Structures are given as C-alpha cells and as structure tokens.
C-alpha cells in the first residue's frame, strides 16, 4: 500500500471522535411534534382559520429568518427548525379572531428584533415567541383580548373584529372579576372553552409535555416547579372559597401549561443547572400568581417568563456547581 497516498486520506482532529447523533435540529423537531396535539385541538375547536394562522405564522418566521441571514450574508440556519418553533408558538398564543397580518408583524418582531439582532439562535436573551406576544399585546390589546367561543367557525377574510360572532369570556377573565367561570371544569381541562388557539386544551398540552419528558428533550425541573408553585400559592392564598376547584382552574385555564411546558423550557433562555431550573420555575410561578391576583391583567404567564428570562445569568451564577474535588476535606480520613 502506498503510505503517502494513504495518509492523505486521514483526518486528524482533537478527541472526542464520537458524537451523540442528537442535534439542535432533532430537538426542535421534537418540540414541533410535541405541539401537534395542542395545535390539532386548536384547529378542531376554532376552525380552518386557526390552521391558516398557524401555517402563516410558521412560514413568516422562516421567511424572515432566511431573508435576514441572506441579506446579512451569514449562513442561513432555518434548517435547524428553531424559526418554525417560534412561529408555531406565537400562533398558538394568539386568539383565532386576530387579523391575518398580526402574526406576521409578531414574527418580524420575534425573529428580527429579538433573535437575529442579538446574534441568532442561542444568543437571544428572551424567548422570541414570548417577547413577540408581549409586544403584540401592548401594541394591539383589543385584538389580543377578544376571544371567540369554541366551535364558532370564523370566516377567513372579513371585517375584523367580526362584529357578529359570539365573544366569550375566558375562565381567567371570569376569575379576575371574582366570579366562578360559567364553564364546567371538565370542559376547561379538555379545552372546550374560549382562549387562544393553543392554550385551551390542557389534555393535549400535557400529552405533548409527556412526549418531551420521555424523549428527555425537556427536563422535569422547570414545568414541575412552575406549575407546582402556582398550585401551592393558589392553594394557600385562594381568591375565593372553593379551594380545590379554584386551584384546578388556576392550573388548567389560561396559558400556564403552554407557558410552563413549551415556553419557559426554551433552552436558550432558561438556566443550565438543575437547581437553577427549579429556582427559575418557582420564580415564573410566583410572578404569574402575583400578576393574576394583583395585576391589571387576567393572565401573567408571558410577563413572568420574560422577567425570569432576564435573570437566567444570575440564576446560573448563583447555582454554579461546586467544583469536583477538595483534597483538604478528605485528607484526614
């Protein structure tokens, strides 16, 4: 064998020479798969218009990412699927009655302002979908607080805000005014209530969450500590007398499950240590409950997650693992 020729074929790299086949791409598609049940339920409940909003939002965020990277002459990374996740999550936290241009504006804000300007995937300091939802909520509050009843199939093009459709009070809005919601708890858990496209069905969100936990895409610490904190605070400080029912309502209505399972767990904007994740989840839970109980808004999930996103570096530093070792400690034994 010709050694010289042979050696040319050899690659020399620094070890390790093995790599787990999982990539950012597969993790993002796991999240997309986990969101299928909730999205499907949203389409089933709110009709064809919900499907159009979802697809439009996903397409728009991919297009914005590709366009930005193309014009900035940097590698186009839409293949990693993170833009698809952002687009889908944003659509899922909008009501079905929003005008069709609204998610596109939101995607622009999420992808260009929050994600790409900060340096692209991994560099953003707040979750793009959450930030875009907060932005839309502050810019067009009436669009984002008008919820339609389940089953009321809206026309695709019409004069928004659909004067002739039935407006529905969400369970959380009812709680805000101090009433028990008119809906049955069973309907709330199943998702037969008013709300945004993706948040209504707790069952579907939990199915997605179990998938992510089984695949180990998401670790249990953040969802458990987030939901647990909300449950504990609602149980200890109930806003009304029906304690058990009330706790269940706090957990299963509004955006808590969508936020706790899919948004607070976004890798980029959550802590890297296990104990840090517990603290982060608990912080999200406390802020959510404080906003729901004392704030002006009926819902506080997106604000809570955004605030905790900004504290991730400090949580990481606070929970920095203790270095392996300590000869001094054991020397005497």
């Amino acid at each position: 064998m010709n050694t010289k020729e042979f050696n040319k074929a050899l690659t020399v790299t620094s070890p390790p020479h093995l790599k787990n086949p999982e990539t950012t791409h597969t993790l993002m598609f796991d999240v997309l798969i986990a969101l299928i049940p909730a999205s499907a339920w949203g389409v089933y409940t709110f009709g064809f218009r919900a499907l159009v909003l979802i697809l439009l939002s996903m397409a728009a965020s991919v297009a914005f990412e590709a366009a930005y990277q193309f014009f900035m002459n940097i590698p186009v990374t839409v293949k990693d699927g993170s833009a698809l996740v952002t687009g889908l999550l944003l659509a899922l936290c909008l009501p079905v009655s929003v005008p069709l241009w609204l998610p596109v504006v939101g995607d622009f804000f999420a992808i260009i302002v929050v994600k790409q300007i900060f340096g692209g995937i991994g560099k953003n300091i707040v979750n793009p979908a959450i930030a875009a939802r907060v932005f839309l909520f502050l810019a067009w509050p009436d669009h984002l607080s008008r919820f339609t009843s389940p089953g009321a199939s809206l026309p695709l093009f019409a004069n928004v805000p659909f004067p002739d459709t039935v407006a529905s009070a969400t369970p959380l809005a009812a709680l805000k005014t101090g009433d028990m919601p008119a809906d049955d708890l069973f309907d709330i858990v199943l998702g037969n209530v008013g709300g945004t496209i993706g948040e209504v069905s707790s069952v579907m969100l939990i199915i997605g969450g179990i998938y992510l936990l089984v695949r180990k895409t998401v670790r249990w610490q953040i969802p458990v500590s987030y939901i647990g904190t909300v449950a504990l605070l609602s149980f200890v400080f109930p806003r009304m007398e029906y304690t058990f029912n009330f706790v269940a309502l706090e957990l299963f209505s509004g955006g808590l499950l969508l936020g706790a399972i899919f948004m607070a767990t976004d890798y980029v904007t959550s802590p890297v240590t296990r104990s840090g994740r517990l603290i982060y989840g608990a912080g999200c839970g406390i802020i959510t409950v404080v906003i729901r109980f004392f704030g002006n808004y009926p819902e506080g999930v997106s604000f809570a997650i955004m605030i905790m996103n900004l504290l991730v570096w400090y949580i990481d530093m606070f929970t920095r693992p203790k270095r392996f070792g300590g000869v001094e400690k054991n020397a005497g034994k």
Partner: protein
Amino acid sequence: MKRYSFKGGVHPPQNKNTAGLPVVDMPLPEKVYIPLSMHIGAPCEPLVKVGDSVFKGQIIGDVKSGLGAPVHATVSGKVEAIKVSTNAAGQNTGYIVIQNDFEERLSPDITPSDKAPEEYTIDDVVSAVRKAGIAGMGGATFPTYAKLQSAYGKIKYLIVNCAECEPYITVNHRLMLEHPERIVNGLMLLMKVFGLSRGYIAVEDNKLDAAEALESAIEDPDLIDVCVMETKYPQGDERQIIYALTGRELTSGHLPFEVKCLVLNAETVAAIYNAVIYGMPLIERYVTVDGDCVAEPKNLNVRLGTPISELIDYCGGLTSEPHKIICGGPMMGIAQWDINAPVIKGTSSVIVFSKNKRKRFSFNPSCIHCGRCVGHCPMHLMPNYLYAFAKDGQLDRCVEFDIMGCVECGSCSYDCPADVPIVQTIRAAKGKINEEQRARKAALNKTFVVPEKEDESKKEGRRVEH
C-alpha cells in the same frame, strides 16, 4: 448487587464488538520502531549505536535524570537506524529502528527473581518496575515506578482499574477473562509490599463475566474486593473510580495518594507482576483493533514498536477508505496522521473509522444553552460558559470558572446537540493559560533574582528522582 458510580458522565454506544474474541499473538514484525519517549517525563537517551546487535528485552534507551522510563528492544536483531521523526502529537521524538532477526534471543539480564514472595520490599518492586520500563498502560503513560514510590506508606486503598469505559476497547476484558490470575497475583504482591490487608478491583457492569472470572481466581475473598460499577463514561478516570469506591473527591492537579488511594490499570498490574517475579520488561501489550472499516476486528498481543499498518493488515485490511485512525479509545484517543506510527506503551486500541462514522462539524456552531454539558461534566464545571469565555479570549474568566479543573474527558462535546467543539476549545485555552503562566514566571525570574521556594510538589518530584 451494589453498583458504584459517580455524578455526571455520558453513555456512548459501547461497541465492544471484540469482547468475545480471544487475544491472539501477532506474528513478529520485520522491523520495530521504538520511540525514545512513550511516557510522561523526559525522553530517553539512546544507549545503542547503529549497527549494534540487540537482544530482546535489552534496555536500548534510558533517561539520565528525572521522571521517565527506559525503553527496551522488543525483538532481537540489529539497530538499523536512530532517527528523529514527528510523533502523533506533532512533537519531534527520537526513534530506534530495529531490524528483526527472528531469533528471539532473550537478554541475559532478564533473570527471574530468586526471592520468596513475602520478601519483596518496596525498593525491590520500584527498581524492578523502573527497569522494566512500565508506564501507565491505560493510556496516560505515567511512569509507574514513580507512582508506586510516591504512594508508598501513604495509601489505604489500592485499586486496580478494570473499568475500561471507552467504547470499542476490550483488552482489559480479555485479560480478566483469560488471565485473571495475573491481575490477582499482581494485586496480592502490591498489597503485601504496601502492607495493605485489602485490595479493590473495579469492573464495569458490562463485564460481569470478567468479574466472575476474577472472583474465581481470588483464593481468599476477604483480601480482594471485586467492585462492580455502573457502565458509564468516564468511569475509568482515576478520579471517578476513587470517588465511586471511596467517596473522596480528588481535584485535578493533585495526585491520588493525597486521598490515600493508588489506582493502577489492569495491564499495568499484570506487567508489574511479570517485572518483579520474572524480571520481564514491558515489550508487548494487548491491542484491540476495531472500527467500521476493519475487515476482521481482533484482539492482538503486539510487540511495542510494531507499525499500526501491520496490525490493520493482520486484521484483514480495510474494507473501505479510512477517515480516521485513532490510537486509544474514541473518546480520548489520538487521531493518527501516519499509518506507520508504532504501537507504544499506552496504545490500548487502534480504531479505524470510515467516512460514514464521520463526526459532523457545523461551521457555525451556536450553543443553545441546553445545559447538557453542565449536567454531564464529571468535574462539575460549566463547560458552556468555559467555551464562551475561551472563544472570546477571556482567559482570566476561564481560570475563575476553574478551567484548569477540566480533565478533557470530552463528555461535553460528545453530547452537545449544537456540535460545539467544547472540550477542544477548552483544551486550547488551557494550553494558552499554561504558556502565559510560564512566560510570566520567566519574566519575573529575569527581573528579580528570587531564591525559588520549594513547594510540596517539587519536593515530591525530587524524592522520585534518585
């Protein structure tokens, strides 16, 4: 049964394909290439000249002073050349090339010891081990005599490392199955010399048959404890074994005897036994040859200095174009640039990967902050931040985040979904930091003439030297 383990680590596919294949003696090579440095410490000076006739087992190179281990002729024959060439790590090393005469003339210096087993003292063992040129055969190649000497009188736990946590490698597994008595006898000998009443053998639970073989070779089960450990990488790291068995944490930069432990590789223990009892130097070792483009993977008993191309040929050659040849395990082994690189004391395996085993590297890796590296780091560091600081050139922050505590096991890079070259970047930064420290020290010495203070480690080093 209790499984000993540690916190962190990863589970790469084990691929122990050769575990069922007995070790076969490889035919002797035409020529052997003996590097003058196959251990940590000073390189050897050649003791022979071109044209000299050498015996098998004759010392042909030795270090004059300082840490090191002599090298031996591994076949009998004639010294053909003494040349300087580049080794796998890119450093220039001397090589002694010996043309084999296939007569297998054994060096007359090699004589079995006439002492009874109880009579050995630490000095006998240390001098025999030094003379035999034994260096850590798990891959670290630290001269074993120095390890034994510095640990004498200070240890409570004597541990034989049979964990073999690297994928593909099965040489320790085969040694335990085929010659468990070599490990047990070696351990018993060392226990007597060190005055210990108990020894430990650490085996991962993917080799339970080997653990059984060891247990049946142990005459008195009160003396030797076979500890079964969870199969996990890097279980075979000295620090993780010590932690798993004793609960003591050893920081990097410190030596095991500081926590009263001594950890030796299985093959090293067998070699110590051979050296002390039979006077036999380290001239051959077991090597696993495997990888997806090796025609017939095998476990071989190979003379040191044999070119790895001959090992591959003996295993039926390659079935497809190779992409990487790795000496040592795929997690920490060194990728070779020359197919004619020789087998050295630390070469536990030769692994040939084809292009379809190629590790994907993205050109624009971006950390997504998933935290897997933090969870996996056996040294409990935060590799993601170390990478970020190192890439940004913030070496002082790297030091603040304990970059020097990294043992470079590669668990972080293995499981990184974003394909970030974490450990590679950390390794480079560690090199830079060491360089800077040396430069600073040199500059300081130039400015002020300060009598150098002797710290503990230096004293230790000197004691080892004599």
